[in-house]
Every structure is written in structure tokens, then in C-alpha cells.
């Protein structure tokens, strides 16, 4: 049956990553360079640096691999599982490569960028594990498009019901239909909420007016309030859906561009090491 990428193939890539980490740690502990403390310039430093650089290139190749369809080889799930575990292993390998020497230079810049990329990856992984199920539960079998259609149907129904309830109500209902927004800028998407939701305001206003409505309009008000409540509930769900989708996507806007920044810094780091040292 279905298996998450973490337990995939009985933790095969976790085992790989763990062996690489264990080997690096053992070598590091027993490593005593001729001069000074362990650092990137010793033989072990070069070995770890090479492994780290190759890993970074390979990890970035994932972006190419997942878009190369129908090429055979290991399925993308293998790649992602390995990408996750070997990416995490990079924390240890690169840190040992530094020999814990940091400063205000291009070398530490590359290290810092790498750590940001890895942390964003971890956030992404957490989203991938947690969000899909929340999203499914929130949707209750509807797609976002279906929700939008239903919201627009409810708008029509609201307008029809409002026709018999006077100008003020009609204005309120029209405004609710016109000004209600789903999504918006990044923060709005991530919040999953609209503090100035036009439909919520309309609902409150209509409720207030209903208290003073003449008897003949009671029926109309009741059905209008029912429709507005249903619309609010759907809006909340649609906004949550947008929010979940944003969670699934947003980390990539850090992960991918910074990977390229890392690649540039890495090249500068390697070039400077070989040219100027």
C-alpha cells in the first residue's frame, strides 16, 4: 500500500545517510592534523568538502530529474526519499568540513546559505507530512473550483432573496457578493482568514436589521441569513484550502532560489580556496 517517503523502502536512504554521517564523525574524532585544529584544509577537510560539494550538486539535480518524465531509472519517490535523508546528512558533513571555524567571509556565507536551504527543506517536509490530510478533511470531497461555483450560486440566491427585503438589504448583499475575496497576497493566503471579509460584515448587518424587521419579511430574512451563513462556512473552508496549498508551496520560494545562491557561493568558495590559498 501507500508509504510515506520517510519510511520508504524500509528506511533505505536513512540507512545510507546514517552510514555516511557515522563514517564522517568517526574519521573526524580520530583525525589529528599535523598543524592546529581540524579544518577544511586537511586531507579529511578536502574529503568532506568534496563529498559535500558533490552532494549539493546531486541534490540540486533533483529539480531536473523530477521534470524528466519517461526516462526510466529510479522512480521520483526514491529520489525524493534520498534527497531528504542525504540533504539532512549534509548538515553534519558540511559542519565537520568547517572544523567549526566561522567568520565573515564567502566560506561561511556558503555554509549559512546551505543551512537556510536545509531548514527550509525541513519545513517543507513537515508541510508535506502534515498538510495533505488536513487538506482532504477540509475539502470534504469538494474541489476548490466546486466551492467557488457553490459560493457564486449562493450569491445569486442571496440576491434573489434580497429582492423582497428593501434597498438597504439589497445594497448589503450586493456589496457582499462584489467585495468578498478569497486569497490575496502571501500573508493573506497564509493566514487563511480575511479580517475584513465582506460576507461576514454583511451577515452581521443583516442579522442586526432582522431584529427590527416587520413580520411580513421574517421569512425572507430567515432564508437570507441561512444562505449567508452557508456562504461564510464555505468561504472559511475555501480560505483554509488556499492556506494549506500556500503551506505546501511557500517553502519552495526559499528553498529553490537560495539553492542557486548557494551554488554561486559554493563556486566562489571553491575558487577562492584553490586560487588564493
Amino acid at each position: 500500500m501507500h508509504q510515506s517517503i520517510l519510511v520508504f523502502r524500509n528506511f533505505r536512504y536513512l540507512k545510507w545517510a546514517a552510514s555516511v554521517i557515522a563514517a564522517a564523525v568517526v574519521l573526524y574524532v580520530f583525525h589529528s592534523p599535523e598543524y592546529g585544529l581540524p579544518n577544511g584544509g586537511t586531507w579529511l577537510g578536502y574529503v568532506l568538502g568534496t563529498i559535500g560539494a558533490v552532494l549539493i550538486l546531486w541534490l540540486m539535480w533533483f529539480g531536473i530529474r523530477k521534470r524528466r518524465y519517461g526516462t526510466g531509472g529510479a522512480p521520483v519517490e526514491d529520489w525524493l526519499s534520498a534527497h531528504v535523508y542525504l540533504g539532512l546528512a549534509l548538515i553534519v558533513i558540511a559542519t565537520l568540513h568547517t572544523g567549526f571555524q566561522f567568520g565573515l567571509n564567502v566560506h561561511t556565507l556558503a555554509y549559512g546559505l546551505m543551512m537556510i536551504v536545509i531548514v527550509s527543506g525541513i519545513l517543507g517536509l513537515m508541510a508535506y507530512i502534515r498538510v495533505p490530510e488536513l487538506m482532504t478533511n477540509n475539502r470534504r470531497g469538494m474541489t476548490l473550483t466546486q466551492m467557488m461555483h457553490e459560493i457564486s450560486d449562493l450569491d445569486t440566491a442571496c440576491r434573489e432573496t434580497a429582492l423582497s427585503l428593501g434597498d438597504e438589504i439589497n445594497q448589503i448583499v450586493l456589496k457582499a457578493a462584489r467585495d468578498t475575496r478569497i486569497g490575496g497576497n502571501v500573508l493573506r493566503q497564509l493566514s487563511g482568514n480575511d479580517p475584513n471579509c465582506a460576507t461576514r460584515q454583511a451577515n452581521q448587518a443583516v442579522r442586526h436589521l432582522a431584529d427590527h424587521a416587520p413580520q411580513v419579511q421574517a421569512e425572507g430574512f430567515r432564508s437570507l441569513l441561512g444562505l449567508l451563513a452557508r456562504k461564510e462556512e464555505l468561504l472559511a473552508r475555501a480560505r483554509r484550502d488556499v492556506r494549506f496549498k500556500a503551506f505546501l508551496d511557500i517553502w519552495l520560494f526559499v528553498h529553490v532560489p537560495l539553492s542557486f545562491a548557494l551554488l554561486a557561493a559554493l563556486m566562489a568558495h571553491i575558487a577562492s580556496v584553490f586560487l588564493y590559498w
Partner: protein
Amino acid sequence: MPDSVKIAIVGSGPAGLSAAGRAAATGVSHVLLEQRDHLSDTIYKYQKGKLVMATPDVLPLRSDLSFQIGIREEVLGTWGTQITGLKANIRFNSEVTAIKGEKGNFELTLSDGSAINAEYVVFAIGLQGNIRLLGVPGQDREWVQYQLNDPDEYSDETIVVVGAGDAGIENALALTKQNSVIILNRGSEFVRIKQGNLTAITTAIEKNQIDCIYSAETARVDDDGIVVKTPQGETKVKCDRIIARLGASPPRKFVEACGIKFPNADPSSLPELSAQYESNVPGLYVIGALAGYPLIKQAMNQGYEVIEYIQGKQLKPADEPLLEQKFAKIPGNRSVLEILALIQGSVPLLSGLTTLQLREFLLDSNVHVPRGGDVIFERNDYTNSFYSIVDGEVNILIDPEDETKVISLGKGAFFGEMGLLSGRRRTATVMASMPSLLIETPRRSMIKLINSVESVKRVMDEAAVGRQIQTYIAPGIPLSDLQELIQTVKVEKFGQGEVLFREGEAGDCLYLIQRGSVTVSREVGGKEAVISYVAAGNYVGEMALISKAPRSATIRAAVAVEALRLDGGPFQALMARNEAVRRTIEARYRGRMLQNIESTEQPEAGGIIQFLIEQGLGEATDVLLIDEALCVRCDNCEKACAETHQGTSRLNREAGPTYQTIHVPTSCRHCEHPHCMVDCPPDALRRNANGEVYITDSCIGCGNCERNCPYGVIHMAAKPRKKPGLLQWLLFGRGPGPGQAVSGKWGPDSKKEDGGPKKAVKCDMCKDVTGGPACVRACPTGAALRVEPSEFFKVVSSGL
């Protein structure tokens, strides 16, 4: 005094037109009767710029008119010019309403009341039928139309749709986008329409998108609208346009009224014809689609040939070179006629066929000359062709463990019918035991034959019963031992959802599922809960026979089911007689009992099975499921599909229902009996040994499969141009990226009319892609999964 001609040709489609062309060219007196005011109405109604295909390529054209692949306007234009050049005698607006008389003296009555005398009549009326008109004054006004090609052509009009069938409703719904629509329903509600249409039309009426007038009879059409009679009285509905969709009277009715016989009531059966297309009524000839030849080129050839035959000329059929080619590998250098005689003489199943039927049958078939020891097909292959043995012998390996256990079939026998019946994998490997001569016939031709020749159907049915009992219930038992049981067998058919038997009833029989699948359910807490699923090739109902207790579960058809009903008595006698049979059945009994107990512990598994069955998985052989607990909605599956299949994704991830976290996206399920295969003129839909149903290049883009698929997984799409490679997109932003829609510069070749030919596309399970289904391989989180439902249901019932 009626006009008198030698040959009257009814219908001016490709067949009739070609016949008229031949008649004109040879100077024989003739008339071509066309009920419309233009030629070839079916092709005339194709949408503008539609490409008309000229398959099969190998068949030579034999006609005084030319025909090659081209757009509708070119094809019709060429025919129009050529038929005028030949000075054929054409009468438009001449619907034939009755034919009386006999060879040499037929009288054809036309709709305008006039009559024509003819010595011979050629029917070339196709399958489309006569479209029913409103039948009231004003029905011929220019703005009253009986078809709708493109609903987007009209906007801001008030349109009245007459007719509340599927066609009317679909038109009405499509027109509401840009118009105000009123639908007239003769009844007081919508009946006999597809469930989807019913929901759509009732919602549209509730939302006031469409007005509906119930119990409405059309009285007349005035200058500015339609007058309608309702129980409340007559009212006029003003409108700009009337679209009447009142169905068509099937051509078969008319043909039968002229005395032509069909072998049975099956809608796909064809009239019996001689090798020269003459029907059972001497002097009446049938050609073209109505005779079972739906392709334009075949029809044109027949038009030519039938005129030659009527004039007493002998002519080798146009397919002669094709048959010669097919028979080339048969040793002995015999002529086509000799081989046809040999086949008909050696295979009793085919002896009842007319020469025409046999030729057609062999054109579709392949000839094989295996040596001793050659494997014909393997157990578990998904192929569904049918084999007849003209010469030699084959062995059926009935036990996969033991190669020595075989059943031998000799000259004249046939095999492969089980796959044909059940739509499932081959049940045994078949091997030639000596040099043989076999004919392999594809599924569609075989079904056509079964439905058209009564004797074939009877022989097949009889043989199938015995073989199925032998295969599924009593392996290795000779037929002679099973006679008593076989005699009691009845084939019963159940519609989807119908009950084979109910929990608590007394059990007096056993059902062997021959086609389709069933669900097993039990009453749990007052509600019927599904506990498992049983596919074709298995039996149900043995528990009550063994334990002699009432039925322990209810069996319901998951899809349309054909089952063999075996009487309890002879079955119990067989078990008593035969130790091996008793042991297998008892083992199955114990397995079922355990399953019953397990399933009561796991009610959620039943819920999943029930949900999947409702989604039509009961007839699927391979389906894509998505675990939404893992799916990160990246749509890489769709992109992978589009990228590996010419830019069009054949799956829609988001669409489709979800139960708990199991999501069934809109994608092909590779049905056991594919609905898409039912009506494909060039037989372009095929299934290969691994089970995938795919579309070959011979697709003519007619769209039948798209309409026939109940799951909406076939689209019509044109092939886009090749786009730049991935790295060019990644580094320089050239062309659309992976999975992005291809249009404009990279879209289909716009130099061709209508953006190149649109052909049907569907999931082919990536049969030509390295590594298997791209959707599953491209899923980064392992959420996408392809499963074979029967295996999947086993996993589900034994705990997830």
C-alpha cells in the same frame, strides 16, 4: 404514371453515391434518392474543417469517384463535382416511405406521394436513421433546426429546445451559456435520461437558468415563435430559434418493413447478405454501414461492386489482394477460394457463414502457422482474441504447476473464448503440439459474428459452459463426467445492483460468474455492509450448499453480470463422486468463512470496497488511486502524463470522488469489457497482453469512444508541435515548461485546418514509456498507485 428505372439507389452517402457514379458511368438507367437537399448528409453534418480519414490504407479504392484523406469541404466538393460530371440522376428531397413488389418490379413510394418503379433496389441508407421532424405546420422554417453542431455559434438569442431526451437536454444546457433557453417537455417530468443529465437539467431549472414547459405539445410554428398546447391551453412562446431533438427512427425498422431479415434482435446484428450484397429479398441489395461496413472506402467499393453485380458482371472483390497477402504464409500455394473452402470445410463453427461474412471475418483475422511447441498465448495474458483450428492440434496447459496435464484440441475446434466472455486474463497457456494452421480473430469481429450468426452464438454458448466449469470448478475432470451438471446450467443476466441471492434465503444453487463482478454483503447492525468483491471466473453460493444452512451473505451485481446457474443437486453429487473437487471447494469454503469473520471485525474495509465499486471499479482491470494523506497536490502526475503523451494529460488528478483519504482521479480504468471499444469504426481501440486498452494510429477522430466512456477519460486532441528540451526551458525560458499547456507557437500546426486532425487520446498505461506508468513514477511522495481492483480488494479485506 411513375418514373421507371432499372436501379433505384436509396441514400447518397459514400456507398450510394459511388453506386450512382458507377451506374451513370456504365449508362444503366438509375435514380439516386436522397431525402435531404444535399448529398451525403452524415458527412455534411460533420463540423467545419473536420478531417475525413481514408482508412484502411491497404484497401484499394474501387469507384468512379475519388477519395483520399482531406477535410470535409474538400471531400464533399470533389464528390459533388465528379457526380455532376458523370451526369448521375439524383432526386433530392425524396424520402422513400415504402417499397413494394419483387425483383424486376419494385415500387418505391416517396414522401411527396409520387412513386418510382425499379427492377432493383440498393439500400445505402447508413445507420443514422431518419431524423424526426416536428410534424406541425412551419416545421421547415429556416430557423427551425434539427441538429446543433456548435452551441457557441449562437449568442443572445431566445432558443426553444423541443424534446427532453439526452440530446435535447445536452443542447439546452450548452446553449444556456450565451442564450436564454426554454425547453419543451411532452411529459410531466424527465424520464429515461442519463442520471448526469437529469441532475444537471433539474438544477438548471431550479436556478432559473432554463425555463421548462411541461406536458407541452407543439401546435405550430409561426413567424415569431412556436405555439404550444398545454393542459392550460395554447400559448405562444416567442423565440429566435427552435432546436428540435426528437430522435431518429432507426433505419433497421424501415429495412425490416421491406422484408429484409435480421438474425436476431440484438441492435448490432446485421442483415444476412449474399457474396454480392443481395438480401433475402431477391433484387434488394444492402451496402455500406447498414451492411456492417462503416468505413467510407469499404462503402464506396461496395457501391461500385453492387452495380457491376446487378448487371451480371463477375468481379473479384476489392479485398482479394488483401486476403492473398494474409494467406501467403499458408503452405501449399493455394488460391484464395480454395483456402476459403478449406476453412469452411474444417471449422464447423464457421460453416454457417455466408461467403461475404467469411471474407470479412478473415480480413479482420490473422493467420498463424505455428510449429510444434510454439506458444500461442500465455496464461495471465490479457489478450482477448479468439482462435479457430483449421489444421493441426494444440494443447491447453490446464495446470500451471504441471506441464504434463493438458487438454488437446484438434482440427475444427476453437479456443480463447473464455477471455472473450470474461474480459479477464487468459486462464491457461496454449501451445501448438504439431505444425498447425490457426486463425486468430480480434474480439470485435468475433462479437460482431456472434451477434450476426445464430449458429455461432449457439455453438459458442454450449462450449463455453462446459469449459468454464472445467476451468473454474472442476479442473482435470473430463466433460463426460460433468454432463449431468452441465445439463442443469442456465445463463442468467443481472443488471447493475440486482441481487443474485439474499442472505437468509435457502440455497439450492451455485453461480459461476462468467462476465462482470459481484459484491458480497451481510447485514451488520440493520444495514447491508459490503464485505468483499468477487470477479468473473469465480463462483459464489457454495457455502449454503456445503453447510446446508441458509445463505450467509447477499450477492449483488457490481456491474452488468452474466452468471451460470448450476443446480445444487448435481453439484453435490459431483462433490460426492470426486475427492479432488470436494477438497478444493471445501478449502474455498473455509477461506470464505474466515473472511466473513474478519470482515465483521473491520467494517471500514467494507466501506472502502463499497465506495470503489460505486466508482465503477467493479469492471476495472487497472486503476489509478491517490492516497490524499500523502498527495502534496504538486500535479507532477498530470505533468508527467502530458509530457510523455504529446502534451495532453490523460488524467485529471483533482477531479473525481474521495472516500476517507482514497481518491479516484478521472483516469482510465481499462475496463474488462471496455465501453470505448463498442462502436469504433476503424477498430482502433485495442487491448494488449498486459491489459492496457489503447488507441492505435488508425483512429479517425469520430469521437464515439469519447461519448461511450462512462468515466469521461477519453478526449479529442490534436498533436502539438515538438517543444524545446527541458534544459532550454530551464536555462533560457524557451517554450512551455513541463506540463504547461501548449498553445500558440508550440500548439498544434495551425496551417492545417482546425489545428490538425483531432484524434481520441486516452491512458495507455505508458506501454511505450521506459519504466511503466509515468504518473506513478513521477509522484514524489508515493501517493499515486496503480492497482488491479481484484487484488486491491483482497488487500483491503485482509486489513490495510
